[in-house]
């Protein structure tokens, strides 16, 4: 399976190298550096074949992670594994950067030892891994000695992601619905593609072995209940509030290992015994009826050969009581721009020559508002006949609701052995919608 794992920095220096199988020679490390990292041209493919050895790589900021194998493996699985590896490392020491990797290299070796054995993925759940790992990431703070002595109960138990005997004075639950909305819109305002990829991230601090049940306004469930005539709490818990949409159609979703999939398949209810601490309960994607928080209306006019007039209007499309934050509109300018005059009604706009773009920032904006920027771009006359490719206008923002329309209906906690009930648990729910790739062509 996976013959070795290498981590390089952007210069191609090896930060971590771990070889699991003998068929991967020492020169494999250099082969990848020479052929991929130091190659002049752009990366041709995430899978590179050098001398009958396949290198799968992913890049995180400027760190290259490469998995090497000589066998004809399942490509999707190797990539999935690399992602998982990144997740685990992030959980231990935060962002994957050269600095962090150098500071935590012993931890990484230890992780690599546990996650893969002889090239076969073994245990990749951050929670369960914690009991095996002696080192602490620079993020870590809890002493591990006590946990290690309890390992016997953990390794024999069926539940790999939670150990027994956890106690909290205050039982608390934090639930974040984090969504990123992606859009590609034509200049005429036609939606070419739009989808929301969302995550439900939970932090649970619960005692014992609680059983949780999570409900949301999934269309299939609501429709089923509607037939049964008991759809009373569907509209009640209006915690977010983009629009009055009752239910949403989820295209596909994945769950944390702890969720009982059989129950989800049969009755579409999400029930689970949660891991302790932070974890991602589910990941989903929707493509239908997305609330697009902003519309960008671009107007580009070429006045002669040396002047461009750009007017961009953004409209916020959500409840007036809500506030969007960290709005940033990025209007690309041609390479031969010599000067830019910008007028905007709100926020601050600046021409950044190094990025070839006008960056317009607005701190806050309420719903159902409209704002406009107009700019005059002066161009240097060039003999380059190359037409300006007109890259799309991109946008960043953060809104306090879920653009997919997802709403949490309930989250119930049952613990039969200890004496606390659902009402005693303090629950916090938060919705954050962020922009993914939010582009409008102009």
């Amino acid at each position, binding site marked *: *399976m996976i013959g070795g794992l290498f981590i390089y920095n952007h210069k191609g*220096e*090896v*930060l971590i*190298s771990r070889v699991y*199988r*003998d068929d991967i020679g020492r020169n494999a490390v250099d082969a990848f550096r020479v052929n991929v990292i130091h190659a002049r041209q*752009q*990366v*041709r493919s*995430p*899978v590179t*074949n050098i001398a009958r050895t396949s290198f*799968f790589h*992913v890049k995180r900021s400027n760190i290259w992670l490469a998995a090497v194998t000589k066998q*004809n*493996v*399942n*490509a*999707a*699985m190797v*990539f*999935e*594994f690399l*992602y998982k590896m990144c997740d685990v490392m992030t959980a231990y020491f935060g962002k994957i950067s050269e600095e962090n990797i150098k500071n935590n*290299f*012993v931890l990484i*070796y230890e992780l690599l*030892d546990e996650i893969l*054995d*002889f090239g*076969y*993925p*073994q245990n*990749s*759940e951050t929670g369960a891994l914690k*009991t095996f790992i*002696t080192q602490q990431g620079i993020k870590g703070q809890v002493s591990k000695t006590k946990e*290690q002595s309890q*390992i*016997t109960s953990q*390794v*024999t138990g069926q539940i790999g992601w939670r150990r027994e005997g956890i106690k909290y004075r205050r039982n608390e639950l934090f639930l974040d619905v984090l969504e990123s909305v992606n859009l*590609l819109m034509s200049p005429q305002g036609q939606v*070419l*593609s739009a989808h929301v990829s969302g995550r439900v991230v939970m932090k649970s601090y619960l005692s014992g072995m609680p059983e949780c049940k999570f409900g949301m306004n999934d269309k299939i469930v609501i429709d089923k209940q509607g037939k049964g005539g008991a759809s009373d709490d569907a509209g009640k818990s209006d915690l977010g509030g983009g629009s009055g949409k009752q239910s949403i159609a989820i*295209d*596909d979703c*994945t769950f944390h*290992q702890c969720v009982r999939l*059989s129950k989800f*398949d049969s009755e579409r209810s999400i029930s689970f015994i949660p891991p302790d601490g932070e974890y991602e309960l589910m990941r989903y*994607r929707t493509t239908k009826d997305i609330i697009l928080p902003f519309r960008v209306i671009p107007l580009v006019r070429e006045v002669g050969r040396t002047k461009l007039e750009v007017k961009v209007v953004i409209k916020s499309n959500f409840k007036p009581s809500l506030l969007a934050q960290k709005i940033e509109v990025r209007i690309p300018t041609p390479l031969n721009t010599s000067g830019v005059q910008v007028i905007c009604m709100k926020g601050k706009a600046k021409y950044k020559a190094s990025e070839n773009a006008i960056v317009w920032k607005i701190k806050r904006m309420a719903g159902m508002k409209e704002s406009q920027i107009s700019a005059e771009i002066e161009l240097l006359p060039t003999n380059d*006949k*190359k037409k300006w*490719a007109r890259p*799309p206008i991109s946008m960043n923002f953060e809104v306090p609701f879920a653009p997919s329309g997802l709403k949490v209906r309930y989250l119930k906690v049952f613990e039969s052995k200890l004496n606390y009930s659902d009402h005693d648990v303090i629950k916090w729910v938060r919705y954050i919608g962020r922009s*993914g*790739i939010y*582009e409008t062509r102009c």
Partner: protein
Amino acid sequence: MPYLGGEETVRELRRALSNPNVQSDQLRYRNTILKVIRAMSQGVDMSGLFSEMVKACATVDVVQKKLVYVFLCSYAALNPELSLLVINTLRKDCQDPNPMVRSLALRNMTNLRLPSLVEYVEQPLAAGLRDRAACVRRVAVLGWAKLHNLQASSEIDAAVVNELYSLLRDPDPVVMVNCLRALEEILKDEGGVAINKPITHHLLNRLKECDIWGQCQVLRVLQRYRPQSEDELFDILSLLDASLVSPHPPIMAATLSLFLSLCSGQPAVSLAALERVRGPLLAACGSGSREMRFTALCHIQLLLRSIPGLMGAHYKRFFCGYAEPAYIKQRKMQVLVELVNDENVAMLLDELKGYCTDVNAETAQAAITAIGRIGRSYSDRCLEILTGLLGLKQDHITSAVVQTMRDLVWVCPQCSDTVCFALEGCEETLQDSQGRQALLWLLGVYGERVSSAPYTLEVFIDGVRSEASLGVKMELLTATMRLFLCRPAETQDMLGRLLHYCIEEETDMCVRDQALLYYRLLHCGIEETRKVLQGRRSDPSLGVLIGRPAEPVSQWARSFNTLEPLRQGSIETESVSRGSPEHTMFDPKPNADLSNTLDCSRIEKVHSECVRCPTIPRCSPQSLQAAMQLVNIQTLAFTPPQTLPWRVYLYTHTCLDDAPHSTLILGELLYTGEEPQKAEVHKGSADGGVGAEGIEDDM
């Protein structure tokens, strides 16, 4: 890698490690070891510290143990004798009450990879299989696989194999999956784990318990199972239905792969399964991570070979995002070309047109090629776009457009008028040799319809002295000859100059010999020349895009969910750069690729014979070679040019995508050079499939 202060650091660390003060202070000792590991991972050679580190291994501190093991495992191979000392400590650790220590010791014992230590390792490994802690059993099971890998020749005890089989029923799912993995490796020669009915049903029932990796492994192993009855087959299929639409791409792909192998006898069921995975596959195509998107796209391409209409309605999902990497964009375009139909063609072409001006030249060229492919069925619309692109006067775009037009004309002769009209004036913007070669080919073949053809050629001929590209010179020769045949009056003078230059001054043998060949050909008379040079202008039989028959699923089912689909496309992009269309239809792929796919056992020697060619025009071996390359006969090896008899080994092959087997023809050519010149051709034709095919010798 050279790092500063290597020697110095080693000496300093050795001093610290053997200092009793440091050894007594646990924290200081651990920190020193940490420094050793850090230096090691930076590439400094630390093997000199091996004996000190072996001593540090005997400790109760788990952290220190782990650190030392990391060191030992990387340098054990260099110090087999000293490693023997570690074994004792490791064996002691295997008795430790803490299961983590036991598993750690066991794992590192097997990771030392020293054949000399095998005898010491076997006993703790056997005990490990019966350990009560699951994490120890996990390690022990894989340990046997490592042991087998270490000495592939020696047989693993049958009792151990039996024990591994019984551990398939272990309560811990990871132990179960590890057993599968270990047995697969140990029993590789016998074809892997025995997959019978009870094992299959047991594995299927426990599939849900496993994590992603385990499920993938189980699904892969199960591919070997053949259900005994139809009822059983459908029971299995309905059990696996949930994993087929699993949101995890690896599981979905592995399940589909299993479906296809189980239903190999029932095409209808396989097709239904393909329909079922459409949703999850499309979802994977839109996933946040680009590598997964790429993998999904490659697999969709496979699926489309059998059900071209599978994604028809979802063509918008394959539109490229601005910031996507070039490799994804190119794949998406390849998929888009497959999805084109009467309803979406306008929208699709509009989108592709947008990509033609991409900043990345390769992406732009791929977009233009894609438009050219669509042009085979919608030629008018596409030609309009292509001619429009010429107006941009950008060299990489013009080059790609001219190449695309050349390929298009070869398949759709009806386009030739528009193409001939568009060619005027684009020679000024063409820079690269590929584009100019294409232009020359077009001018040669359609010279009579392009009024400015002689003038364009003249510019080329005037500049031939400074021409660097071999291909362009050869193409120029052929084009001028062809043009001479249809417009002799205008071309005669420049042809003379060109031949004179090539024969008298040119230093490259290939060009010179080709010129000589043409010169002698002209001596044989104009009719002879016409016969040789004016071959076919087009080959409409290559087929339009839409009517292409769907391949049976079994064509590609074996390569599904492996690395193959990811590799295929990269070959396609390379073959974008090429010579004339006559050559490309044989699709000459690089040699290395051939050796990958060839399996000697499957080649049967169909026939070999010896042909004598009594009359051969007097010419040099090089020109023969050049002439043969024109008809896609490649040289494998040849004797030095001056020797007599001169021998050359030749091969040619067909690699048509839709043919079930490709034909490889090997030949030996013997050039005796004796008075009545004789050339012998031994033909050995090896064929994987149907029947023998001879070759026509153009000599």
